[in-house]
């Protein structure tokens, strides 16, 4: 391997410099500054900054609003990630077959992902509102109250946002699974056919094991994205009713940008960061990611 000499280093560094500057200004600095803020009381209006130590972190765990937001966030993640993953895999398996109008189906499932989240959220607000199509359908099935839309029903609000999220995200993860499926060598299926394997056995013994890296990627990315759910909540419910759809990022937004408790909001953001980190490590371990890396 050739080791680059001084001039080459300068050239490489020069080419990387625009990215490094952006990374430092818009990623590293805010990250470090919010860590600093989480130990302070900061009032942006007066500019006053008082050191409070770990008080914000202690207060968070006795704050009923934060605990409710944390619980809702976990419900959202646990409720959406497995369903989205299984649905996306099923769709990918479906559109990977030689079907008539296969391209149309692939595009159709992917279109919701291409649509702006705000647009989709506003569309669903209308569908879920009192008298909207989905509210009427839910009423016919005895799942909704007549005098209030689904997003105003304490029991149905979070489920409704979750259902929309699954509908929007499944197409994107389907595409990732499709890419993973197309990497599996055809010979393995031919060999399985020769051994007389059934379709279920081929799925269980060939497809799923070889899709494991992609499944880990899908589950990780989807989990992180779900923990950070915000736009849908902001547009559709503003955390209501009675905090039933409040999530941690929405809590951070309210504390930071409505009440201007920047320090408290930063502490909540860091708690979420550590939660996501812990869950991601657990998921990677469950999928045997580290063992493979060590080998």
């Amino acid at each position, binding site marked *: 391997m050739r080791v680059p000499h001084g001039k080459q280093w300068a050239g490489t560094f020069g080419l990387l410099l625009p990215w490094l500057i952006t990374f430092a200004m818009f990623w590293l600095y805010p990250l470090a500054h919010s860590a600093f803020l989480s130990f302070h009381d900061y*009032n*942006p*209006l*007066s*500019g006053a900054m008082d050191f409070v130590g770990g008080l914000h972190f202690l207060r968070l765990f006795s704050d009923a609003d934060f605990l409710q937001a944390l619980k809702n966030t976990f419900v959202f993640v646990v409720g959406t990630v497995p369903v989205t993953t299984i649905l996306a895999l099923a769709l990918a398996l479906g559109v990977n077959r030689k079907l008539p109008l296969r391209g149309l189906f692939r595009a159709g499932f992917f279109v919701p992902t291409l649509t702006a989240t705000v647009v989709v959220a506003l569309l669903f607000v209308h569908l879920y*509102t*009192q*008298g909207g199509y989905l509210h009427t359908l839910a009423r016919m099935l005895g799942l909704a109250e007549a*005098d*209030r*839309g689904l997003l*105003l029903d*304490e029991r149905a609000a979070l489920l409704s946002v979750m259902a929309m999220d699954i509908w929007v995200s499944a197409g994107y993860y389907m595409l990732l699974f499709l890419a993973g499926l197309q990497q599996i060598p055809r010979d393995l299926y031919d060999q399985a056919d020769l051994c007389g394997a059934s379709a279920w056995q081929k799925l269980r013994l060939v497809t799923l094991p070889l899709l494991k890296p992609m499944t880990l990627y899908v589950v990780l990315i989807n989990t992180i994205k779900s923990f950070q759910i915000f736009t849908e909540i902001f547009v559709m419910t*503003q*955390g*209501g*009713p*009675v905090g039933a759809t409040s999530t941690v990022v929405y809590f951070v937004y309210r504390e930071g*940008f*409505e*009440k*201007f408790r920047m320090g408290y909001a930063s502490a909540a953001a860091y708690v979420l960061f550590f939660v996501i980190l812990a869950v991601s490590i657990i998921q990677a371990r469950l999928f045997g990611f580290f063992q493979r890396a060590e080998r």
Partner: protein
Amino acid sequence: MRWIKYLILPLCGYLLFGCSGGRKPGEKIVEFWQFWTDPEARAVIQQVADEYEKKHPGTKVRITDLTWSDGHQKIVSAFAAGRPPDLLELGSDWIAEFAAEGVLLDMTPEKMKTEYLLIGWSPAMWNDTCYALPWYLGTRVLFINCELSRMVGLDCRKPPITWDNLIQWAEALNNLRPQAYGFGANAPEKHRLYKKFLPFLWSNGGRILSADGNFSIIDSEVAVTALDYYIRLVKQGLVEKQTVLDEMFAGGRLGMVISGDWLLKKLRSAEDAPEFALAMLPYPAPGRGGRISFAGGEYLAIPAKAKNPIGALELARELVNEKNSLNLCIATGGATPANVPALQNPYFVEDEHRRVFIEQLQSSRATPPHPQWVYIEQAVEEAVEKAMYERLTPREALDEAARTITELLRED
């Protein structure tokens, strides 16, 4: 690589001189941040700015449009960065928050001069000092669908005048048509729900804060009665967001709704709107309490760090004068000026609907000016929400709100 200098030099020149926004040497700027973004209203604001520039040669008015969804954040960011505009439109419940931090200019001398010309001063005050000029005011009245009323023999020209009447009307108007409701109640929307409950609290003699402002009295007996009544009223119809309620009323699917002048504008511009009447909010009982509604408004304030405070004050005077206030109201079709002579114009006085708004405005009340208002508002809304969703009884909900607000006041 010599060619690079031909690219870099013009770029540096642009960065050095191009960012001044085309400012000519010696020219003064009045930077004005405002929230009127619909084309008709924006044209009137621009016209006032153009006239101001003609009267003050060498001064340019630079207008920046804000939206209610993120305007507050932008204003706070500008103050935090030490670069606020010269003149600023503020919502009525933001003034105390900014005034308490010392970022607004004292406008008491201007108040002394214009006190008799403008109404709605109370939200502009903090610690006996005035920090803003009232520009536009808004209140909420009862909208009644006359067509649905007639179906059950009720006359919308003789509207409900007591709380009991209001419930009876709501019951009578409920389910007259498929998907039609007697009363439209606000869903737990942030920054909106408290505006619907507080009129009932105030009308029944309740208050949020004690006279000295040191503790909350929202758990008083009259307040609990008001919340109890409000919850009973909510059950007589549909719970939805304000925009949906307005839409449903305009579509003839709501018997009654409490709303503002924007709905009047909507009804007048809709081709298939039902026949409607407006009424002041009812009394708690015959001969008892008041007909108090919520008063909000838009105010003009000058930041303490404004670069051109004199220009800003002159522009503010132009904006609040009779002619310009009236022009803006006519352009928007749904605003009530704080300027008294403008309010006495036939445009308001001879209009049966606008007259109700002006009458209601006389007995409307603004929220108590307080720097912690955003937290107090949240506590009030949470109490109403918990009672609406039967998490707590009205008594328990207001006890909890009183404790939260009192703790906030003590922290302050």
